[in-house]
């Protein structure tokens, strides 16, 4: 786009959006329209599909791990090395390449311009590049399955020294590919993220003040800001580790005798890496959680036909959580050997975060109170989210409270906790969001019966997988273990029944994983066979439902951008004709035809 200086202080004239339609790049070829597209909606789909494809790989890996854990020794191709490689790739893919990419690259790209009333992202070209860099990062990552030694088995935390030493699988090629892939991911993400942030700041349509923005936009926006500031820490750590590994610097590497060999390293600090990693890693949790918070607020309000309760507090909670998430990182390091006095500080900050988080939960539930709740499929997922998130949030208090963390850290309690908050809950939010916005994206509804089946098995199944798992952790079963039985046999405090439980969890995991096929089938079939949706099937107020065409075309809103006259949550307003008033309906016209 042309970079021009326009006078913005003219109060009577407001340019509706940064990019007027005639300035948009109009692709002429099929390739330009669907492959090298600069349209945020297409880029969103590209991001989503790529993310879901790698996500499937990560899902298969988790099933393989569960096979080993549930039925140890039965599947001989799962060696101890393979197991930790699966753990690592599964964790990294799920957190970064699936959820981060899907929430920000996928939902961010699709929803931000539509919801704030912009024609597109402010820099469509950069936006396109961002996707291709992401794809490249994904390919690099997957390539590590095919190099000698296989992918890295260092755990998704990539802690040195073991990450780059021979006792860990993938210590030469796998880890390098991982680090380079992460660096590219960060670069690609930064390009996309700048776009999302600046679009929200500068390209909102006329009347869309910050406090009229839907919470979905607030969530994605804040998460993007967090990501932009947190990923540099990962980037720094990745560069320094690459140098340690390839050139032999000693940033993180102390003097070591590895496998009987004295190495040339000396003096480095593994704990320094952990600080850098978690300075990124903790905000990362919220990068995944905040968009989910926003989306859930949206779903609950729309399908309960009620305004979100305490909108302003919800916004503040998102912002405060985002800010605080930068000063709690060392709660992942209570037993890392860092100065133990840090424990006081980080336990306090961590538990403080519990307050705004709890407020979010209260407000969701209070939105349901005296609502008019339609149990549509998206709503089912939203309520499922609230339930699992309450559970996961509460176990977070255990782990944040430094002394309680001591016995629980590095056990299955941790695995169960973080799956509940950053796997189960966000994934339920993703599903809810897909069922909710699919009609806008394709113009057709997803099949409801299949949707309900998908919900029930996924929700109940996931809860049955992770709830009992906490108790294995309380008992003491360590995480990242290929098998509980070692050279000294099975520790006598692990009863036989634990193995039965593990087998049960594995079976549940396999069931849940298979049911995702129903979802994929539904996604595919409904594009042509789903019920026609119309422009606004849920009766929602936000701008994306007010487009004149569904799916929205290039430029989103036809000739003229909508003007916004009210906040996003005018549901069941007393005196209005319908039980919702779209954001672009001027004051005084509520009683007339809503559109």
């Amino acid at each position, binding site marked *: 786009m042309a970079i021009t200086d326009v006078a913005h202080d003219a109060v009577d004239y407001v340019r509706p959006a940064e990019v007027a339609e005639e300035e948009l790049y109009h692709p002429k070829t099929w390739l330009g329209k669907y492959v090298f597209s600069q349209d945020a909606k297409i880029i969103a789909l590209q991001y989503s599909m790529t993310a879901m494809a790698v996500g499937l790989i990560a899902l298969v890996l988790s099933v393989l791990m569960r096979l080993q854990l549930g039925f140890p020794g039965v599947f001989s191709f799962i060696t*101890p090395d393979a197991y930790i490689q699966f753990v690592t790739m599964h964790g990294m893919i799920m957190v970064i390449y699936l959820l981060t990419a899907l929430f920000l690259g996928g939902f961010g790209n699709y929803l931000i311009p539509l919801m704030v009333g912009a024609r597109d992202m402010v820099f469509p070209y950069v936006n396109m590049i961002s996707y291709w860099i992401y794809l490249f990062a994904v390919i690099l990552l997957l390539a590590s399955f095919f190099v000698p030694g296989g992918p890295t088995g260092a*755990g998704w935390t990539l802690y040195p020294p073991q990450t780059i030493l021979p006792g*860990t699988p993938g210590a030469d090629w796998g880890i390098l590919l991982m680090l380079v892939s992460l660096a590219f991911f960060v670069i690609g993400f930064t390009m996309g993220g700048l776009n999302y942030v600046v679009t929200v700041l500068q390209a909102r349509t006329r009347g869309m003040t910050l406090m009229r923005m839907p919470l979905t936009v607030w969530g994605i926006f804040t998460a993007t800001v967090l990501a932009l500031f947190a990923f540099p820490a990962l980037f720094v750590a990745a560069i320094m580790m690459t140098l340690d590994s390839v050139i032999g610097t000693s940033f993180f590497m102390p003097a070591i005798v590895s496998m009987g060999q004295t190495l040339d390293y000396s003096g480095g600090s593994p704990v320094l890496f952990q600080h850098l990693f978690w300075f990124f890693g903790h905000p990362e949790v919220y990068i995944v959680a905040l968009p989910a918070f926003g989306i859930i607020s949206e779903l609950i309000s729309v399908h309960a036909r009620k305004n979100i309760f*305490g909108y302003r507090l919800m916004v503040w909670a998102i912002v405060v959580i985002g800010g605080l998430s930068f000063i709690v990182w060392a709660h992942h390091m209570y037993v890392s050997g860092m100065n133990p006095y840090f424990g006081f500080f980080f336990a306090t900050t961590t538990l403080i975060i519990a307050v705004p988080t709890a407020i979010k939960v209260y407000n969701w539930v209070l939105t349901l109170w005296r609502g*008019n709740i339609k149990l549509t499929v998206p709503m089912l997922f939203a309520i499922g989210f609230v339930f699992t998130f309450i559970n996961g949030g509460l176990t977070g*208090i255990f782990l944040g409270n430094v*002394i309680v963390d*001591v016995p629980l850290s590095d056990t299955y309690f941790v695995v169960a906790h973080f799956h509940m908050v950053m796997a189960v809950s966000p994934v339920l939010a993703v599903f809810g969001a897909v069922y909710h916005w699919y009609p806008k994206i394709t113009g057709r509804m997803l099949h409801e019966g299949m949707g309900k089946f998908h919900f029930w098995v996924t929700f109940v199944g996931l809860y049955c997988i992770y709830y009992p798992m906490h108790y294995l952790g309380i008992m003491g079963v360590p995480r990242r273990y290929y098998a509980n039985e070692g050279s000294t046999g099975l520790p006598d405090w692990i009863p036989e029944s634990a193995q039965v439980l593990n087998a049960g969890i594995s079976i549940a995991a396999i069931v849940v994983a298979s049911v995702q096929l129903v979802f994929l089938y539904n996604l595919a079939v409904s594009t042509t066979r789903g019920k026609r949706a119309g422009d606004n099937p849920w009766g929602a107020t936000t701008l994306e439902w007010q487009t004149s065409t569904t799916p929205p075309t290039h430029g989103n809103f036809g000739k003229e951008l909508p003007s916004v006259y009210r906040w996003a949550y005018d549901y069941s307003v007393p005196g209005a004709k319908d039980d919702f008033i779209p954001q672009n309906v001027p004051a005084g016209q509520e009683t007339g035809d809503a559109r």
Partner: protein
Amino acid sequence: MVLAIILVLLVIGSVLFHFLSPWYLTPIASNWGFIDDTLTITFIVCGFVFVVINLFLAYCVYRFRYSKDRRAEYEPENKRLEWWLTAFTTVGVVAMLAPGLFVWAKYVDVPEEASLVEAVGKQWSWSYRYPGEDGILGTVDVRHIDAKNPFGMNPDDPNGQDDVLVSGSEFHLPLGDPVKVLLRSKDVLHDFYVPQIRAKMDLVPGMITYFWFTPTLAGTYDVLCAELCGSGHYNMRSRMVLEDEADFRAWLATQPTFADTQTVQVATVSGSPEEQGRQIAESQGCMGCHSIDGSPGVGPTWKELAGRTEELADGSAVIVDDAYLVESIVAPNATIVAGYPPIMPAYQLDDAQLAALIAYLNSL
């Protein structure tokens, strides 16, 4: 309706599971009962919140289900309610945090009179060091580590001469006295983990970390590694024996000091050649990677190894005889069995030790 019922069932199920499940804290063997208490407080507060909010959620879902003839209430905010909820949450949080920090203050404050023991980790075995008569641990350095001096003791430090070195699969501690466990790693991160004592801490190469506890319950406990440390992480085991003072003294007296290990070739192993081989294998940490019962591990199992035909990484095959076994121990990376990573360290053992090991291997 269904959703409300399921939510209620999940809540009830969770609570019942908590009380009925056979999987809960192991019987405690240290002074850290406080930790269990804080855990219990946290369970009570969080459990209360879990039950109340979710039941309320289920109630709302049931009570305010959709009806065409009804409109939802329009209520953007309720400042008072929001303040009350915030205040109530804050109180709950303080109720959990305050005792937590109180106990943490104890945890970081090691008693003056605590005795010392050092746990040393390497991929994938443990060894232990006691300060000896003088109560002082000698200085150590990675540069001193070799086959003869696996602890990296500084040979010129007089404080180190009487240090008792235990490179077996077991170490002992006396009941009733606080111990400060110093932690040192030779290679990567590990974590000294015995669930029954509740306390744990990472071993970080390049620095000495520590924690303390007072053993209270006699018994033999598994020591595990709780920080991912590579292929054999799950198999990095050893045993901790808690016993009364007299038994402990008697056991300690049978262990060699550093001076012993440097001067005379102490017969730390005894018994038949097979038995000696077994002891050597345990003390050298072989079991971190090899199983003797045929179960898979980081390295090939030793069960029925002798006489077996191994396929090598380069495609050829070899019949396992004594010469191959010796080579595999002193120069393990010369030939690699197909499917295994070349990560076994070379061992410098004398002929007698090798002979004992071979005898042991042949007996399996």
